[in-house]
């Protein structure tokens, strides 16, 4: 015992356990996100229950089991529910029952001992809809213009065909509304600003105004044509409907235009489920969100994140690389470099929210406000750049990630042997030429590493973005077909903020939770992939220069 204590072995074991715990936490966390995030798209079986309610009535409940937990039986009896059980613990299920327009909420919890019967019906159908969330029930009829066109067994196939047809019309309508009409509205707004600009400069001569008016008229007539086209599409869209019966036997008629997807999970084969799973996964990354971001995809958030990160990268790279070159190649090591290093460390250590505050005050209100005064007076008092937007978010994050690029580039520069610089200088190259022709090409992998790490950091940062440009639902993407194509003044969506917003600000957190896990998984995967790439490049670089040193 004495010897064991003296050897320090218990301490060594404790230190080893710390590493084990850290590793378990990292892996566990990643697994948790992966399981919850990926599980969301798997078509869950729909269960039918007969359930004894507190007023001694038996009700039928159908839905997916979302969650189950054990709670003390006594606690339930205390809350006034009659429960005849000898068990100390009972299981409580959280059932997603859908049909929000009928029940008011999507979920209900039921207690295991009060379930009198449970079954699964292969005909149970799940409808994903544009509004009111999921619908659970059994398909009875398909109607077109109020006339029944299919009933009974073949109605399922007919329904699928109808859904495909209406989805196409829906897509056309979406294209017209968002694309062409959106573009016309945008052009009309630009014309209005142009006119206002002319008035402000006192150049509003009748011919100029006439030109604008003429253009506006032509746009208006185009708009009318599109409007008529839309109207015909809409009548076409609203023709078909379906009749379904809920578990309680209530008959409900639902317009097929409201249906996104219909499937019967209980009857699916394993391959059917895999196909469905992949389809849902694709929909998740490529579609727009629905129902206040709690359903559908996250494409605009991915797009916004990527745009922001690209613009940020364009700004941060030159600044970071130049600063690193100054520190390593030009500056005399002394107080100045020491101060710069302290500054770099502080830039890295300053809380990100402080960057947000600075960005909002300095970039948005100060710079943006002045830009508006100088260049966009016609839009005032509505701000153009004097409001949070893509450009300010990118600049703010560029400032935040500069230290990452500096540190990484410096490390790359320090690994280049002196002999290479001396060789170049000896051959008569100037310092700038040496830098440009030999040093920077050789450092490029290190610069790349820094850039990737900066991108990874920026992609995961949320706090400053909340102040300088991110919103929960952007009406338009920052890149589109309207001049000037890239709209730096627009607000945008962001994956990290999407997680915060949907997970914490959404009215229906329970329904949105799986989607948040999926978004989190996507973000984690992107960031881990970026980091692993950076680590791999760095390691290769080290190996390469090890051989150079001899």
């Amino acid at each position, binding site marked *: 015992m004495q010897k064991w204590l003296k050897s320090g072995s218990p301490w060594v074991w404790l230190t080893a356990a710390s590493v084990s715990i850290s590793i378990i936490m990292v892996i566990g966390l990643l697994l948790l996100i992966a399981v919850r995030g990926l599980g969301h798209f798997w078509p869950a079986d729909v269960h039918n229950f007969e359930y004894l309610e507190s007023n001694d009535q038996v009700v039928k409940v159908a839905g997916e089991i979302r969650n189950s937990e054990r709670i003390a039986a006594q606690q339930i009896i205390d809350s006034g529910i009659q429960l005849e059980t000898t068990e100390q613990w009972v299981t409580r299920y959280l059932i997603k029952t859908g049909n929000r327009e009928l029940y008011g909420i999507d979920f209900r919890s039921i207690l295991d001992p009060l379930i009198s019967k449970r079954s699964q019906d292969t005909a149970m159908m799940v409808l994903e809809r544009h509004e009111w969330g999921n619908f659970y029930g059994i398909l009875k009829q398909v109607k077109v213009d109020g006339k029944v066109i299919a009933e009974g067994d073949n109605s399922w196939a007919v329904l699928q065909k109808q859904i495909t047809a209406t989805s196409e019309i829906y897509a056309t309508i979406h294209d017209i509304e968002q694309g062409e009409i959106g573009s016309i509205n945008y052009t009309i707004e630009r014309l209005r600003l142009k006119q206002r600009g002319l008035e402000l400069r006192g150049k509003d001569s009748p011919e100029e105004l006439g030109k604008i008016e003429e253009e506006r008229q032509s746009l208006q007539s185009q708009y009318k044509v599109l409007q008529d086209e839309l109207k015909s599409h809409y009548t076409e869209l609203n023709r078909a409907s379906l009749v379904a019966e809920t578990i309680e036997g209530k008959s409900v008629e639902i317009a097929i235009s409201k249906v996104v997807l219909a499937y019967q999970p209980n009857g699916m084969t394993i391959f059917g489920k895999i196909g469905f799973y992949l389809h849902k996964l694709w929909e998740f990354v490529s579609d727009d969100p629905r129902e206040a971001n709690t359903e559908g995809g996250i494409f605009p958030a991915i797009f916004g994140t990527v745009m922001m990160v690209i613009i940020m990268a364009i700004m941060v790279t030159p600044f970071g690389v130049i600063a690193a070159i100054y520190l390593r190649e030009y500056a005399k090591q002394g107080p100045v470099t020491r101060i710069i290093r302290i500054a770099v460390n502080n830039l890295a250590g300053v809380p990100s*929210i402080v960057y947000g505050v600075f960005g909002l005050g300095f970039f948005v209100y100060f710079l943006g406000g002045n830009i508006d005064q100088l260049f966009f007076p016609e839009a005032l008092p509505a701000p153009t750049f004097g409001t949070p937007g893509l450009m300010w978010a990118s600049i703010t994050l560029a400032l935040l990630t500069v230290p990452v690029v500096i540190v990484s580039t410096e490390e790359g520069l320090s690994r280049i042997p002196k002999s290479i610089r001396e060789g170049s200088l000896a051959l008569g190259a100037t310092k700038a030429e040496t830098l440009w022709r030999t040093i920077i090409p050789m450092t490029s992998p290190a610069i790349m590493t820094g850039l990737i790490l900066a991108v990874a950091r920026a992609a995961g940062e949320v706090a400053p973005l909340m102040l300088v440009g991110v919103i929960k639902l952007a009406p338009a993407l920052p890149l589109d077909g309207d001049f000037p194509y890239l709209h730096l003044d627009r607000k945008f969506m962001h994956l990290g903020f999407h997680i915060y917003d949907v997970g914490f600000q959404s009215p229906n957190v329970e329904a949105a939770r799986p989607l948040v896990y999926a978004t989190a998984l996507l973000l984690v995967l992107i960031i881990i992939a970026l980091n692993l790439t950076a680590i791999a490049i760095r390691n290769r670089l080290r190996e390469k220069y090890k051989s150079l040193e001899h």
Partner: protein
Amino acid sequence: MASALPPIDSPASRHHRKMRRLKDQLAKYMIAFGGLGVIAAVALIFIYLLYVVFPLFLSGSIEIEARYPTPAHSNSQTLLLAMEEQTEIAVRFDDTGKSTFFNTHDGSVIETVELALPPGAKITSFAAATPHTRIAAYGLNDGSAVVVRHNYKVSYPDDIRTIIPFIDYPMGEDPIIIDERGRPLIRLAIQDGEEMSMIVAMTDDGELLVNSGEKEVSFIDDAISAETETFSIASDLGNYSYLLLSKEMDIVYLANSKGDISVYDVTDAEYSEQIEALNLKADIVSLEFLTGDISLLVGNSKGNISQWFPVRDDNGTPRLTKIREFSLDTNAITGIATEHSRKGFLAIDEKGQVGIFHTTAEKTILREKLMDVAAKTVAIAPRSNAAMIEDQQGNLAFISLHNEHPEVSWTSLWGEVWYESYPEPDYIWQSSSASNDFEAKFSLIPISFGTIKAAFYAMLFAVPLAIFGAIYTAYFMTPKMRSVVKPTIEIMEALPTVILGFLAGLWLAPMLETNLPAILAMILLLPLSVIAASYIWHCMPAYIRNTVSDGWLAGLLIPLVILVVWVSFSLNYPLEALLFGGNTQQWLDTELGVSFDQRNSLVVGIAMGFAVIPTIFSITEDAIFGVPKHLTNGSLALGATTWQTLTRVVILTASPGIFTAVMIGFGRAVGETMIVLMATGNTPVMDFSIFQGMRTLSANIAVEMPESEVDSTHYRVLFLAALVLFMFTFFFNTIAEVVRQRLRKKYGSL
């Protein structure tokens, strides 16, 4: 090939060389510029934050814009001076029943209105309601009162603002009869609200009468009709010279110059009663409500103005209590004017001095002598940007006030402040509310406390794990395993905090709530089982022990840790039933008196600890790994065990590095936003309990910044919070960096 080059001294060649030299110089300057840009960026952040915060600490100032004789002042005394929003027009009510509108900048009379008084009636008293209602009332000698309002019509013909003043009668032109018996009303008070109005009057024989009217809006034509009733509260009162009615129309204050104050509750005709009678132990020469009508401002003849408001005593009865006192000079206070939407006020005295004060901030903003004779009446503009003072000789001074942020002082930010309606001085952060006369509470103490608390619990979780882990990784672990473990922990650092926060809030917090006993068991069982395992291992025969070296221990322990965690969780329900009566939260509440908040410091500590572990880990690991090998070898050669070498040589040598790591980790925990935002309830409480939440500086900024008005006090205080965070982390990071630079120098010599 050589022929392609021009001769060395040809003009082309010379030009080429010149260009190259130029480019080289240019590159040099540009790069230096870029390098120094980093310093510029840090300086810019600091300076800009300072620039926004700075106006908070500017003292106020006043400027006399104009002096002119009081308009229409012959043979009359001023009863009330008031200004409209734009401070272009002012009005003067006098004791002859005239109201005069005049231009504030030159005193020229715009319009004089003779008020509609019944013929033969004499004015015996006057009262003004809360300033923003612009209502005043005259009490007459026949027991009736006339209610008037100075009103303004603003229009923009040809884009030029035009203001037309007029007088109207919100309760009708006919006098309102207060006393059926027709006694003169010698004191008067009035308030007019959206649902009711009230006039309180005292007759010449000391009866206190209340006339209250419930307003009813007709559905047909939006006309307002009032149903009035009059009741008597007290009679045979002595000589009270001040009568005040709060704007909620529930409390009446009566006061005389000897300092006696009598308080009545007038909410209900049947239950009106005297609540309190006291003597202030000082004379009263001036008495006004502070905005909000909760506090009284009492001016005395010694030049002091004290603030009083009711505070509930131990029995729950409200007692008028002296909260704080301001001093103008040593002369009698002749008038007090309170700001319309802030808790500040102006006071004047009989030597012509004026002072600007703010109650919450306990701040005397300025004291200045404006005139050589006694000042008599003072009025403040609705936006607190101008004031008007009349002196005894009938001259008016129109002054502009520059006093943007009176709410902020060292005490209001960092000290205990006794806020209105609070039982005692306290630290409170409550920045905004719907009501206009809300007392903003800008104490940074609760949120700074929350920041430290969150960081403390995070460090409590992270420091042992990270430092122990780093010691093992750097000192014992095999290189092969190290090459896997280090990147894994580095990846941990890259995880976005929004994901950690989301998991903490939506997964960890509910999980901890139901599994609290399991967590307790885990904290106890994990170290014990590891030590027990170590002992069992020690007792094993040597051939088994030698199969696995210390370097692989961390891998070996993973199954053990998982097992212990699993055991703890399966013990959760039995433990809860055994120790805590089946419900831990309830047990905590009843047995220990600790209330349990689902999103508490434990959750934040774990989640934020998770975020700072990698930072501390990797710096510590580098420091320990960087300890020169000859030091450890020397120690081992002298016969020390590996553990002795570690504790006496390695850790001591690496201690500055470990210190740096902890500093940087602490800096990160202090500034972290998303985790605390999502994993706590964000309530700014001052409670160190681990089962309670908190609000931190960073989360506070994230929550309130988007809705704060640009350049308002709130906006600047939030910038101040950011500046505090900046300086805090700047301090820690600079220390860490200086230590690190020293360390590098030291190791360089070893």
